[in-house]
């Protein structure tokens, strides 16, 4: 096992893929000469050259569309979008083309494109760089949506995404890039269908993904000090959603709190909540709870941004208020 950062884990997957598959290339804004806005692709231009590490102009819609076109024509493009807020400029290509072409062509076409982007708040980047819109992507049939929370998943999920015959979107929470973790560098693709139980417990299920996993684990630690054993579920994959792991946990704990940075109204937590109601209503001791982002555009000032995002104490409070 090697210790590396989340950023280095993504980079190690990128360079491994570039080394072993000539169909793989990377394109996006500032991925080459700048080394990536989050320094993920730092050094790749020097190793693989400008044909395979392609700096694009600022044209999210067109370079995502070009990724789709190249994937249709035999390549394995890895497209980087700087942040999920910027990806809104590419939503036409995502929704109307990437997600539809296999179905609309009666199964003739395959779009094996991988699109990576940074998501989430907590870095005082204000309201055009900080949102968590992965739930919007998860609404779309025809694509996969991956939300790696651990260093091992940051590497293994990207390698797995490259083996998929359909479009895969990977949302990397921007606060995770400097986080260190253990990785087996010999490990290849990991599973991208299942949620993971990151901590076992029998009193409540904390269901979350991305950077909120670490807040949920910290909350579970605090709850344990008070004798409450929380089970922590890392969804890992928002589409296709692993409902079985969620339901198995809730059937055991009989209570659920869903934690995500996205806004409450119509967020992904609402989908998880609905699935629990539909399939495990009879086992619940108390109503499903959500700890979500406050419904404001992300504020810049630190105290305001902190208050707008789910925090460890919010999770602890919700559990304590309901688990009497």
């Amino acid at each position, binding site marked *: 096992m090697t210790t590396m950062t989340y950023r280095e884990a993504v980079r190690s997957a990128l360079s491994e893929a570039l080394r072993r598959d000539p169909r793989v290339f990377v394109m996006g804004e500032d991925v080459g000469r700048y080394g990536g806005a989050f320094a993920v692709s730092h050094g790749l231009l020097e190793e693989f050259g400008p044909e395979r590490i392609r700096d694009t102009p600022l044209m999210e*819609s067109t*370079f995502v569309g070009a990724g*789709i*076109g190249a*994937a249709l024509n035999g390549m394995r493009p890895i497209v980087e979008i700087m942040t999920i807020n910027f990806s809104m400029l590419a939503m036409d290509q995502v929704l*109307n083309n990437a997600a539809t072409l*296999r*179905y609309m062509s009666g199964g*003739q076409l395959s779009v094996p494109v991988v699109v990576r982007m940074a998501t989430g708040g907590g870095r005082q980047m204000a309201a055009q760089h900080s949102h968590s819109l992965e739930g919007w992507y998860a609404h779309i049939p025809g694509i996969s949506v991956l939300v790696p929370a651990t260093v091992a998943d940051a590497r293994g999920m990207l390698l797995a995404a490259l083996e998929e*015959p359909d479009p895969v979107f990977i949302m990397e929470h921007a606060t995770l890039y400097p986080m260190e973790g253990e990785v087996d560098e010999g490990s290849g693709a990991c599973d991208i269908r299942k949620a993971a139980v990151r901590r076992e417990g029998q009193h409540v299920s904390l269901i979350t993904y991305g950077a909120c996993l670490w807040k949920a684990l910290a909350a579970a630690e605090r709850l344990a000090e008070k004798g409450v054993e929380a089970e922590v579920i890392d969804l890992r994959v928002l589409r296709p959603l692993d409902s079985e792991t969620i339901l198995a946990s809730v059937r055991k704990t009989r209570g659920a709190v869903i934690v995500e940075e996205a806004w409450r109204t119509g967020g992904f937590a609402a989908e998880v909540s609905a699935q629990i109601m539909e399939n495990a209503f009879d086992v619940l001791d108390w109503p499903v709870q959500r700890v979500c982002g406050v419904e404001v555009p992300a504020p810049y000032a630190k105290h305001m941004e902190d208050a707008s995002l789910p925090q460890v104490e919010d999770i602890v409070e919700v559990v304590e208020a309901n688990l009497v």
Partner: protein
Amino acid sequence: MTARTTRSSSAAKKQHYLDLLRQMLLIRRFEERSSDVYQVGKIRGFLHLYIGEEGVAVGAMQTLTPEDAIVSTYREHGHALARGMPANELMAELYGKATGCSKGRGGSMHFFDAERRFYGGYAIVGGGLPIAVGLALADKLMGRKRVTACFFGDGAVAEGEFHESLNLAKLWNLPVLFVCENNLYAMGTALAVSHSVTDLASKAQAYGVPSQAIDGMDVLAIEAATSEAAARVRASDGPEMLEMRTYRFRGHSLADPELYRTKEEVERWKEHDPIPAFIQKLRDLQLLGDPDLEQIEASVKQEVEAAVAFAEASPWEPLEDLTKDVTAS
């Protein structure tokens, strides 16, 4: 040159011209028939007819090889037929039948044929251009000498993706032949209401993409310009754009009451109908006699009627396949 080769090359030329005429007539009669079928409710959704613009698809498609790729729009019946997609499968697609070129999943706006490298009709205006750029990027990275022909309308030129795609295609020297079908209206919005500069070909030059405007009602001019441009694109790996100045004689779709243009304007353009104009030209060259034309019309009619019969007799996709092919697994 011997008398024999002269005779055979002039016979080949005649055959080629008659073939162009037949392809244009096939598109015209196919669409007229599909319009009839639409009126009796057997085709639903949108039906965007290409009538008046047939010379563009037929002229432009001649130089493309089976290895080249096509990206089209929601007004794509002509491109598909000119590419050689069987009329049976296209009519069946309009009917929504399982034997359609997209199994009835796409309808009029979304024809696909992976084998003929027809990468589909894109109904979000401008949305096909980035796809074409990506197809060409893959060819370039793989070292394949192929052309991607990308058809789009004057409306798409107002979209950001037009400007982004031309910029990127030139920046990376990708083998895309951009074919703009300027029929003067983006749905019901006239060119001058959409564009501060109405000379669309000139816009390509802002990105360093060579371009020219062509009489889009003259199939031979279109064929010549496209052959030359495609050869340069293939040789140099750089994009070019052709603006085909054309006109659609029917409404934007069959739902269009055509409040935005006069009948007189349409009638004036019909005087430039590419099919009668080409027939007259062939008669003047003594390459077309009445028996030739009758024979072509009869064979086209037979092909279209066979397509209707095929579509009528074809099965629907079974309901249990509703969620099939959303993803591969």
